[in-house]
């Protein structure tokens, strides 16, 4: 039997194990299903969002744009739909989302819900603001039974970090954003699925209430970790369409 000449042997294909390594490396790089890769791809697709809402949707309390990171996906999805369909009003958001499908909006919502990034410390209150905020603390933690106002914690969770699947956390948000949203709810400009529990509450709030709540909420540090609660400990005081819609 003739043996192969030396030169030919050197150019034989790579041994099997190195091919396997190569294939494994190639798969790791190219498989779109890998969670890290998928997240990276979504980060690239949502650059249009993060320019204003901060990297990974981590916007801090020093601007206007709300934080998106770690909010319940159901809540984010509803807001994206409302913006696209003209039920929530902010011109730039309304236009940006026009050509996007429900499926894609859900992917975007889930992407930001999955981002776990630490909260920056809240902006400090001045002495006068602190005294105004005291009324906000009372409303947020205890409500006002005489006026039929439940505490914020009754629906948004004991730590105010939201409740799955569709109730948002209220911490880490800019003061101006909070007061603009409460004002919009009160004026009927911001709405949710019927029965619209938040509208019902906001219409009972006075302007000083909104001021006090915005001050107090924006000054609260978020607990670590600041995840939404899996469920409420007690029955919520109101029936909320946005929560029912996700069941």
């Amino acid at each position, binding site marked *: 039997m003739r043996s192969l000449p030396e030169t030919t042997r050197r150019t034989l294909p790579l041994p099997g194990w190195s091919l396997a390594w190569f294939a494994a490396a190639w798969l790791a790089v190219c498989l779109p299903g890998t969670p890290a890769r998928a997240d990276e791809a979504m980060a690239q*697709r949502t650059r*249009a969002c993060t320019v204003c809402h901060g990297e990974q949707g981590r916007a801090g309390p020093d601007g206007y744009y709300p934080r998106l990171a770690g909010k319940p996906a159901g809540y984010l999805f509803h807001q994206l739909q409302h913006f696209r369909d003209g039920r929530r009003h902010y011109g*730039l958001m309304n236009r940006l989302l026009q*050509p*996007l499908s429900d*499926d*894609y909006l859900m992917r975007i919502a889930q992407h930001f819900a999955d981002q776990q990034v630490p909260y920056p410390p809240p902006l400090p209150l001045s002495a006068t603001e602190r005294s105004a905020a005291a009324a906000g603390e009372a409303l947020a933690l205890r409500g006002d039974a005489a006026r039929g106002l439940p505490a914020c914690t009754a629906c948004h969770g004991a730590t105010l970090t939201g409740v799955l699947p569709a109730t948002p956390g209220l911490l880490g948000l800019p003061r101006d954003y909070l007061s603009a949203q409460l004002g919009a709810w009160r004026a009927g400009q911001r709405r949710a699925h019927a029965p619209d529990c938040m509208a019902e509450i906001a219409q009972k709030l006075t302007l000083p209430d909104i001021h006090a709540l915005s001050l107090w909420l924006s000054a609260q540090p978020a607990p670590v970790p600041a995840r939404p609660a899996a469920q409420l400990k007690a029955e919520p005081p109101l029936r909320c369409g946005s929560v029912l819609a996700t069941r």
Partner: protein
Amino acid sequence: MNRPPLRVPEPPFPRPSATRRLLPMLAVMIMALLWLTFYGDIDLSSLNKPVTPEVPVERLGRPLDDSDSLTPVERGAYLARAGNCAYCHTAPGGAPYAGGRAVATPFGDVYAGNLTPERKTGIGGWSADDFWHAMHEGRSRDGRLLYPAFPYPAFTGIRREDSDALFAYLMQLRPVEQANRAHTLRWPYSTQAALRVWQWLYFSPAPWSPEPQRSAEWNRGAYLVQTLAHCGSCHTPRNRFGAANDDRRFAGALMPDGLWHAPSLRSIDEAGVQQWSAEDVARLLRSGRAPRGSAQGPMAEVVLHSTQHFSDVDLVAMGQYLKSLSVLPATDEAVALAPRAPDTRLMQSGAAIYERHCADCHGKQGEGLPGAFPALAGQRSVLMENSHNLLQSLLYGGYGPSTRTAPLPHGMPPFMLTLNDIESAAVLTYIRNAWGNVAPEVTPLDVQRQRDAAIR
């Protein structure tokens, strides 16, 4: 204390009253009518009469969808998407086909009507004949003339059987009681008399006629583009009374909202596809993107709501037809306005802004990131003389459409609140003149005009 009396500054020129401004226009319209009646070789009595379309069906090849076994309702559903009816006839976030979206025109807003089969507020009391009269003649069931914001100048050419299929589809929708909103048009455009004059001057119901020397495929594409898909409603320039300029069909026009420029389909420097393959045209209309261009703004919505649902056969047929459109020579005006070298300071500050805000996605050399962010070097939507679309994209950002074949498009953030007018002008002038690009400067005034137009 003596204060000077408060004075309201007067505008530099006294504005003529509304009546005085309209008089010359009315005079022209009346004279035009008289001239047409007595000297024009148009027989007015023949206008506005239904013409029975006689399109030889065999010239159109097979039915509009691949499947021959469609029921009239299924066929109507397909045609309704082809005509993008639901887009205007659905208020944002409202019940489908129940009407209520405002169509902005230079004459005021026209609100699309309720097309659901509801008797009081919809078209529940209509017959297929009534529907045909609306599509073919621009005339409502009660005899009122309809505003051409409803694109009957294009729909007039559709085949009767297609009109009937559309009607059958609409009649089985869920009836929704929703009263039509009154149009908010200015006088005299708000009157039936004005519409009557308009129809006399600019519209006569006519069947679509095929070109027998062309292939069945080409004719099918032409039929779709010219009638149901009503591409000319945006892409054909209009005169000051909103009538299509047929000599410059598909030659590009400012959209009626004044924000976007529907690029010319007859110029290879704008959106002409004469040098594309018909398959690439189909790809753009199906997915919103193609190797040499992508759909943005209003076209992204057309792809989303309408063209992505066309069958492949129909899309390629439309591509064949669009490819065959003759190229219009550039106007003398465009030659005279050949770009000067842009201001050096503007270019320098533009380069710095580009580096800071744009280069991450679009690349240091404007090369883009394939499959994600478009290249800006050599991109004709960047180089197009008209800068409306570029400004819209910069100020408002935008996503491509989520389509079945490209469900997760990439997007661009709005820069309206990040860049001021001077910075916006600088960065756009830079991308129009860097990396071998050559195109006219964008001025801060251009930016300001676009911001103003959006507020109006």
